[in-house]
């Protein structure tokens, strides 16, 4: 299926992929300061393993910063 991940569109993804599956596929560690949205809406990290992505979804990953 097609996903847009951090502004990059690709058809390489398998159907039924979860957010955690996407992170594993991209070798991205779900560090505590990683925040993820699907189609602009925040997804709680306890749902990463359950949230199934759909064809055309847009996923954004943000590393929040604590400095001031």
């Amino acid at each position, binding site marked *: 299926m097609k996903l847009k991940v951090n502004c990059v569109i690709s058809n390489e993804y398998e159907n039924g992929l979860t957010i955690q599956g996407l992170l594993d596929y991209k070798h991205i560690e779900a560090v505590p300061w990683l925040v993820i*949205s699907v189609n602009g809406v925040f997804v709680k990290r306890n749902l990463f393993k359950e949230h199934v992505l759909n064809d055309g979804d847009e996923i954004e990953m943000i590393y929040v910063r604590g400095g001031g």
Partner: protein
Amino acid sequence: MESRYDRLLSLSSFSKEDLLTLQSKKVLIIGAGGVGQHVATYLVTNGIEHLTILDFDKVEISNLNRQILLCEKDIGKYKVDVVKKALNAKNKDAYIKSINIKLDKSNVSEIITSKYDVVIDALDNWEGKFIISDECHKKRIPHLHVGVDGMSGQYCVFKDKCLRDILPSEVIKEKRDGVMGSVVGAISSMATTYLIQFLLNKVKADELVSFDFKQNSVKTIKF
């Protein structure tokens, strides 16, 4: 005769009523570092005239790359004293109160009170950011969160949500990078603009905006 707000009032999207609204607001800034100084500067030059700023630190030479209100002659002085003087030099009509204390769990309930319309988290550590967010959420006071590190950062005005809704407490283990003063300035200025718009009921709260200057990207996440 020109007044200090002439350019602001000639802005097509800004009215005299907007200025009166801002002048009636009471704002607390916790942290007088890079973020705090940028936010405070743009607030007192754009209509906020009741500002309390809290910090316990003294000025060091390593602060000067991003903390725009400080000069070399200020090294060794308390930041809140220097910042208060600098802000009043920009706007003598503004009532600036400085509090020289370190915020912690034991004193937060006395510091963050309902007399403030908004609280600004300008601290440089997650522990303090959670303390502010928890207290504001408990007392239903909107708070502006700002975080900057490396070449990126984010801001969010929390109203119905709070920091714990998006981050686990383990975030305090975040690895730190250095910081470029202009990145702190850019993100703090954007955050201040958003806060002013929020105080004027022109934008919604509970949206996180993130900037990454390495990739020149802007991302917005709704809760």
